[in-house]
């Protein structure tokens, strides 16, 4: 087993474990800590897949901004931020549905070739040519969606409404 495969296996185990822990622990602040580790772990997988720009973006946007936003949401909505969630029973139906999703997807994965392929790497400049070329349609679309989303968010939280 090569070093890259070993690294991927370790990262994959950490990703699934931290995602599960984040959704199962009862203290919301611990959830944020686990999900931060999950995001950093995914950034490491992007670096392993030779997509350094996406890795940095994942660290900046997810591990940075999204984590802090979620923490802010918890701070605003609770009186004591370390208070515990009420325990929710894990019913058999959600577990079964999640397992069905997983098994369905894995059975589709099983039809792909199993052989090892060299990872195709791209220069970040090629990605920027694709993103900013032809008048930057990708980024304009992203900017418009973000503008609409932030306007909607401000509309929702504005003061003095009845």
């Amino acid at each position, binding site marked *: 087993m090569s070093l890259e495969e070993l690294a991927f296996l370790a990262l994959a185990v950490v990703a699934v474990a931290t995602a599960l822990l984040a959704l199962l622990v009862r203290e919301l602040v611990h959830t944020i800590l686990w999900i931060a580790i999950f995001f950093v772990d995914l950034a490491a997988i992007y670096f392993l897949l030779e997509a350094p720009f996406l890795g940095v973006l994942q660290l900046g946007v*997810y591990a940075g901004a999204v984590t802090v936003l979620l923490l802010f949401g918890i701070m605003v909505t609770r009186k004591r931020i370390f208070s515990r969630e009420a325990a929710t029973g894990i019913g058999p139906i959600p577990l079964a*549905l999640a397992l069905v999703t997983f098994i369905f997807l894995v059975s589709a994965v099983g039809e792909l070739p199993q052989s090892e392929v060299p990872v195709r790497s791209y220069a970040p400049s090629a990605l920027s040519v*694709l993103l900013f070329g032809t008048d930057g349609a990708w980024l304009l679309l992203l900017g418009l969606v973000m503008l609409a989303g932030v306007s909607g968010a401000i509309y929702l939280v504005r003061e003095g409404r009845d």
Partner: protein
Amino acid sequence: MTTLALTGFLGLSAALLGVGVFGILTRRNFILLLIAVEVAMNAAILNFVYFAAFPPNGGSGLSGQAIAVVLIGFAATEVAVGLAIVLALNRLKGTINVAQATDLKL
């Protein structure tokens, strides 16, 4: 040069989507619900990056990475809107339990 098998990666994103579905179905706290959606969304973004790294028929998979960039931006927007809903819900109902958000009118 890194060589890896594609199937392990797809198995990981399938597992992450399963975890996300599980979280969406079990948790009642709006913020935990948002986190579960983020986990599921990250599974999708991961798939785009895989297929950019392993393009079919030796073509260029660079648009996969471009879509991943756009999706990361969409996810950040989604969290911002989700938290605005959390704050509005908290102000109106005094709770962020989704089971008590029974009407659409905010």
